């Protein structure tokens, strides 16, 4: 008799915990870069994501954050750990395309959802697309395409273009040329991680360029701009947002003033979601949010919107709920194209100074409701 009661109690307890676990809980594994050179981007992605989760106050969302140190092997180990022992339902957070390539295909093959807060390599947008992989940020080429379109519309006829010699750099110049389509004064690939651009600046001076487009993320862009400003050259500069984002503008200083850059987000986009985000982010962390923070914030809100409509254990329903993208994006209009990459406006921003802080303001729209060039290649 005693034994029977005990068993019954045990069964009841098991049922209770099982139903608890079933109660729309979603466990998110966030792998991002929190130490070393590129930590600023990962920290902003994380802070934006956590802020959205905090504001939503949804107890069903559980988040584990780990540092990939910008190393693909560590990212893979962390993903394995999160899938095998932490039993996460959704992975997110990776900043760099090479790390995303190492983690995303394996994670989606194991039936996990991956929501990208930043990295969106073309390999995962075209033939390598997957129904469980969503890029909330953009497709990697998007901002470069917008820069190309802007340069063409602004009437420049001989831009000099440069990018580092690695896949994202080559994609960048390809994207720029796709929508610019005109004549170039020069096209130069620099070394990845290069910090001295004296040689390239001399080449620009010797060419008859009427403008410059460059994609040099992080410290590379800071170095280039400072040296460019010091060279006495005075051509208009255009680039994607990466070298002019909130996190690094203060380090570039006056050299960045007036530079035009393309972005799908800025703090002055006029909608209620964005106003709340910018205000709450500053209140929580004491600094202005960056593009990466905005992308992290949107990713979390997309996930929360899907959680309201479907249970993560029902993968098909959850997938459709994600695909519907019914959340208030800080970017305004946001929807997914057939290959799960955003359809969104991309703006032209100008670097300005507000008081003592360097920041951006939107001056134009480069592309409206822009999708990406890889939709056709994706069969899913």
């Amino acid at each position, binding site marked *: 008799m005693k034994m029977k009661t005990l068993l019954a109690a045990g069964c009841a307890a098991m049922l209770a915990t099982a139903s608890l676990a079933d109660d729309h809980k979603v466990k998110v594994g966030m792998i991002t870069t929190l*130490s*070393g*050179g590129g*930590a*600023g981007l990962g*920290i902003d992605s994380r802070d934006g994501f956590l802020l959205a989760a905090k504001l939503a106050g949804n107890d069903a969302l559980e988040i584990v954050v780990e540092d990939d140190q910008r190393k693909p092997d560590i990212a893979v180990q962390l993903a394995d750990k999160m899938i095998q022992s932490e039993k996460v339902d959704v992975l997110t957070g990776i900043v760099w395309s090479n790390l995303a390539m190492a983690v995303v295909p394996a994670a989606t093959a194991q039936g996990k959802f991956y929501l990208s807060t930043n990295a969106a390599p073309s390999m995962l947008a075209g033939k390598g697309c997957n129904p469980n992989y969503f890029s909330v940020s953009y497709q990697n080429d998007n901002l470069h395409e917008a820069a190309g379109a802007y340069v063409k519309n602004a009437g420049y006829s001989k831009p000099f273009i440069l990018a580092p*010699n690695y896949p994202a750099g*080559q994609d960048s*110049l390809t994207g720029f040329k796709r929508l610019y389509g005109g004549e170039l004064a020069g*096209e*130069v*690939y*620099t*070394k990845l*991680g290069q*910090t*001295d651009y*004296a*040689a390239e600046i*001399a*080449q620009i*001076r*010797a060419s008859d360029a009427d403008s410059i487009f460059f994609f040099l993320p*992080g*410290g*590379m862009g*800071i*170095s280039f701009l*400072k*040296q460019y400003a*010091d*060279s*006495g050259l005075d051509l208009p500069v255009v680039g994607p947002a990466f070298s002019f984002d909130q*996190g*690094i503008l*203060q*380090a*570039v*200083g*006056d050299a960045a003033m007036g530079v035009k850059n393309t972005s799908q987000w800025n703090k002055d986009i006029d909608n209620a979601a964005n106003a709340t985000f910018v205000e709450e982010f500053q209140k929580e962390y004491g600094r202005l949010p960056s593009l990466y923070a905005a992308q992290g914030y949107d990713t979390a809100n997309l996930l929360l919107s899907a959680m309201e409509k479907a249970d993560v254990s029902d993968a098909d329903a959850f997938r459709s709920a994600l695909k519907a993208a019914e959340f208030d994006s800080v970017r305004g209009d946001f929807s997914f194209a057939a290959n799960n990459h955003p359809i969104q406006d991309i703006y032209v921003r100008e670097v300005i100074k507000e008081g003592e802080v360097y920041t951006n303001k939107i001056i134009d729209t480069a592309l409206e409701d822009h999708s990406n060039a890889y939709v056709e290649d994706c069969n899913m």
Partner: protein
Amino acid sequence: MTPILFIEQVLNGLQFGVMLFLMAAGLTLVFGVMGLINLAHGSLYMVGAFAAAAVAGATGSFLLALMAALTAAAAAGALVELVVIRRLYARDHLDQVLATFALILIFSEGTRWAFGSFPLFLDLPGYLSGPVTLPGGIEYPLYRLTLIVTGLVIAAGLFWLISGTRLGIRIRAGESDREMIAALGVDISKLYTVVFALGAALAGLAGAMVGAIQSVQVGMGEPVLILAFVVIVIGGIGSIKGALVGALLVGLTDTLGGLLLPEVFKLFMETSAASSTGSALASMLIYILMAGVLIWKPQGLFGGQT
């Protein structure tokens, strides 16, 4: 390509080489005198740059910033020598590599903890910014010219220090026979601390001077460190003269290679492919140069002499 562009690139190569020399000089002194492989040398470069950025931010003076870089890097160097490096002289190189690699991580994360993850701002002072016009109509940034001159003056000072002063005699003696000079009453452990701090100060100065035109951020020292190792392998370990010649060779090869190779490839390839292939090959050039020197002179150009 115009002659002006070529001359400008030679100047760029010289400037790059001179900065590499400041890094390599400390590395080669420490390796030559103490037989120690110091992977954390790049961290001292970073310490110099961060100290300069912090002081420039607080005082607005570039000269004070440079002094701060020198002092902070020398102090960090001396501290590291007293606390960690001192225990490693008798160990083999593998232990030294491991311990100094750990120091890189400690310095990087320590700096991130103290200054945050975002790059810092260090700008040129007004009197050093902007271009000057050289004979022949070449426009060249004044600051880069200043770097070349400063680097060459420091190189001359180092030669004088090594060959003409008492400290230099001790350093050279310590290099050949450390037991003997210890027996002659020279405080060898103090000498080592001084040499280490001197090398650190040079790296810190380079970090601050380069930081003003590049980015001041965590991990900025490591790429330079690799090049500095290439320089001392080419120049010959322990030789200041070798470090100078090696640094200038690497600087010029790297800069001119990056300019000329894509041009050469454009003669028989489509522009986009040529610039990508050319720059890929150009980034290998200094290692090809190193391999060539090692085949011809396995000890490096000035190896085995000081």
